[in-house]
């Protein structure tokens, strides 16, 4: 147990390692998401949209330049879009914004410059054309070489508008100078002045447009965007690689943690298994010890019980022996005085019989003798002789009867306590029943009415009378106790003892109207030490002794038969008439039988 606990304690170290690994995993996870990969991705996205807007803007510029698109709405919208995209890029990745935003500003400025220059160029070109057309309508064009001058200027103008180069611009300037030097009325016209102004404006704004379109920003922009894109891609690659490294580490640590956890689980399971085994062993030991203790306890208890019962048997045996000896002694002591009292009573009876005629004569004489007999008559009167003559024979008779009863009791006592013991002798069971009834009288007289129903033709039965007496007495006492346990105070139960003779055996039954024996203990009532009586009252030996006496000493049976139809118990002793030597223990006394 202690070693197991120690081992469980040693799990704490590995647990700390596992937690450490878990924390490392969390750290790696966080780090893998903090490599700036997302920022680079977003920045790249914004840069791409700047690039896309730029491409569209260049397209719109192209369309504007070649007048495929008249208005600047698209350009204006693209300018706003580019500014927004640039600002978003700057908000995602400020360093990228620092590179790209100034470029965007320059580009937007160039576009603005383009728009205003292009508008003026376009305007002047259109107006110049209209002015030339108007001048051709004027009469002044027919003066001198005016038409040639106008033609020259128109051709130079168209040439210039088409070429927009230095050469053609010089030719236009030359044509205008030639016209001016010609001093014809045509060149004095308001329209001509306007034409010249517009021509100058065209040259001026063509140059300006050229300067704008030659602006570095137009070719720088894609280059810078490309380089920035490459930088972002590199940053992205680095961050992806970093994230990949972190994730690989994460994976490795995860696998390690998994393996570690598995090992831990196995170890813990082994510990648990071990503890379980310890526990089982412990439980087995406890069970064993408990069983041992229980059996020892049981042995002790049965030993004590046995000892108690043996002692009780001894006490009963001693008591019975003492009672027997005492009864025998008392019987002898009573018998002797009773003998001579009896002799004297019978002497007095015979004397009285002899004296009666004498008294008769004396009375007769006293009556006849008149005066002489007066004194005798007075004496007779005083002695109340007539009453005496009536009562004395009766008194003597009663005395004789009393003496006979004493004699019977003494005989019964002697009979009952007769040690017998030497084999079986022909015995009168009816007499045995009667002596038992008399001996047990004190037991039953306040508890039950006892009736005896004896078979007058009961033959003598080979038996040990004193043992049979003992068995009968036990049955009677048992009946009395049964009745006592169920009857109320003052209510008398009934005990009936009967004898019957059959061809080969005689039967003595003791019945009572007590509660009877419950079915579940009927087969145990003859076991030694079995008792339902309260502790101290019964020894649990009575029926067992009786059973042994009947079965072992006499080869008979003692059975319990429930009484049908009413509560009560019926114990039947059956004693065989013909002796079966083999099953009899001729020397066994009832004491030996009781001691088992």
């Amino acid at each position, binding site marked *: 147990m202690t070693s197991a606990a120690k081992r469980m304690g040693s799990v704490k170290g590995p647990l700390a390692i596992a937690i450490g690994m878990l924390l490392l995993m969390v750290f790696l996870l966080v780090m893998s998401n903090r490599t700036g990969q997302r920022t680079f991705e977003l920045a790249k996205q914004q840069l791409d949209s700047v690039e*896309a*807007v730029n*491409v*569209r*803007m*260049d*397209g*719109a510029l*192209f*369309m504007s330049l*070649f*007048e*495929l*698109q*008249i*208005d*600047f*709405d*698209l*350009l*204006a919208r693209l*300018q*706003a879009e580019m*500014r927004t995209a640039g600002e978003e890029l700057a908000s995602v990745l400020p360093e990228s914004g620092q590179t790209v935003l100034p470029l965007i500003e320059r580009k937007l*400025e160039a576009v*603005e*410059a383009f*728009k*205003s220059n292009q*508008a*003026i160029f*376009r*305007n*002047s*070109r*259109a*107006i110049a*054309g*209209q*002015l030339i057309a108007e001048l051709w309508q004027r009469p002044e064009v027919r003066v001198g070489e005016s038409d040639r001058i106008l033609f020259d200027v128109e051709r130079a103008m168209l040439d210039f*508008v088409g070429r927009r180069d230095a050469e053609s611009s010089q030719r236009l300037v030359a044509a205008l100078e030639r016209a001016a030097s010609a001093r014809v009325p045509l060149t004095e016209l*308001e*329209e001509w002045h*306007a034409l010249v*102004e*517009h021509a100058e*404006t065209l040259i001026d704004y063509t140059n*300006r447009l050229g300067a704008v379109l030659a602006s570095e920003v137009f070719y720088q922009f894609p280059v810078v965007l490309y380089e920035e894109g490459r930088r972002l891609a590199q940053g992205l690659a680095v961050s992806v690689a970093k994230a990949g490294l972190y994730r690989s580490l994460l994976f490795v640590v995860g696998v390690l943690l998994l393996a570690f956890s598995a090992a831990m689980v196995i170890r813990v399971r082994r510990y648990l298994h071990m503890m379980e085994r310890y526990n089982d062993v412990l439980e087995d030991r406890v069970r064993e010890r408990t069983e041992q203790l229980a059996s020892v306890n049981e042995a002790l208890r049965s030993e004590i019980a046995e000892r108690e019962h043996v002692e009780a048997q001894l006490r009963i045996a001693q008591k019975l022996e003492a009672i027997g000896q005492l009864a025998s002694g008392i019987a002898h002591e009573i018998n002797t005085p009773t003998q001579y009292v009896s002799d004297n009573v019978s002497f007095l009876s015979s004397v009285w019989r002899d004296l009666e005629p004498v008294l008769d004569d004396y009375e007769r004489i006293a009556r006849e003798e008149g005066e002489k007999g007066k004194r005798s008559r007075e004496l007779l009167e005083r002695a109340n002789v007539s009453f005496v003559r009536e009562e004395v024979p009766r008194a003597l008779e009663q005395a004789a009867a009393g003496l006979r009863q004493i004699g019977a009791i003494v005989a019964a006592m002697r009979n009952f306590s007769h040690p017998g013991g030497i084999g079986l002798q022909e015995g009168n069971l009816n007499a045995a029943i009667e002596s038992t009834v008399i001996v047990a009288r004190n037991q039953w007289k306040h508890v039950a009415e006892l009736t005896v129903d004896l078979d007058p033709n009961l033959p003598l039965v080979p038996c040990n009378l004193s043992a049979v007496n003992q068995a009968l007495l036990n049955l009677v006492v048992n009946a009395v106790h049964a009745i006592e346990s169920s009857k109320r105070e003052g209510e008398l139960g009934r005990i009936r003892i009967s004898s019957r003779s059959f061809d080969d055996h005689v039967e003595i039954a003791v019945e009572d109207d007590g509660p009877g024996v419950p079915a579940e203990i009927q087969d145990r009532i003859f076991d030694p030490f079995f008792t339902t009586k309260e502790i101290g009252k019964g020894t649990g030996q009575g029926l067992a002794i009786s059973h042994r006496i009947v079965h072992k000493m006499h080869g008979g049976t003692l059975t319990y038969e429930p009484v049908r139809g009413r509560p009560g118990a019926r114990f039947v002793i059956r004693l065989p008439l013909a002796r079966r030597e083999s099953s009899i223990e001729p020397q066994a006394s009832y004491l030996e039988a009781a001691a088992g």
Partner: protein
Amino acid sequence: MPTRRCDARHLQTQAWSLLVGCCLLGCSESDLAGVGPEFALPGPPSLAGVMPLTRPEGLDRQKVALGKDLFNDTRLSADGSIACSSCHDVAAGGDDGRPTAIGIGGRVGPLNTPTVFNSSLNVAQFWDGRASSLEEQIDQTVQSPLELGADWTTIEKRLRADRAMRKRFEAVFGTEPDAQTVKSAIAEYLRALITVDAPFDRYLAGDRSAMGADAVEGYELFSRLGCISCHQGRNLGGNFFQRIGVMGDFFAKRGRAPSEADLGRFNVTGREEDRYKFKVPSLRNVAQTAPYFHDGSGETLEDAVRMMVDVQLGRPVRDDEIRKLVAFLEALTGEVDEALL
């Protein structure tokens, strides 16, 4: 065989369109739809590509309503005396009818108040285009000492003290009122202020009776004389910057030497070529937004047209042509949803 010729041109156009489309990649078909068949002829630009204005879509109505109320809210000015709407009267052209703006405490600004109508279609905000978005423009206008003169902290404090306002901001933005949300709401309102159904729009949509004969002729003149060189696109301007006085001296004609404000976009970029450049204003609703030009020096539409013809076109234009141009410009007045007024 005019039909056949048309077909041939059409085919040619398609071929060009395809070629150009392939070259440009980024250009969608709709961008090319504005290309007229005259592309190959060096002549005056035409309005063939002009599209009528349409009602804005995809706006947050709740946000627009909130923006409208903020637009009319004097708490956005330092002293609580004026609101955006004080100068931008949406019931009268979306501007103030004054030569130059008057801010808090009667402070007079140097420039004419532009209309808020269709301002979301402009390439940038303010005459010099210093604000590239409406939000930026609102931010500057609110804080400009010559305009609302307020600061966002004060405005936020004021609006946050208003429970109803807080609730509305909560509903629209899920946050308390702050500079960013106030600007966003007002910008949304401005984006809603697109004028539609001008006679010209109806004319473009095919209703030939929508404009009078003078206006129709004015439209052709507008195109032929060169106005359209700058006032192009569906907003007839507003999408780029141009120098005032390309073909003449605007300031000389105005009779007043250029001030700092007259430098225009130069003040923003510092580039010499941007000197006197201003955002080409949209001509939409132009009849309602007198006086004209960045300095409000053009009192009437006719004055303005004459000035433009003089200093920008550099060509003689007859009076009847001026009248017809004005008739056309008057046909550019559209309407906004009444709920927005």
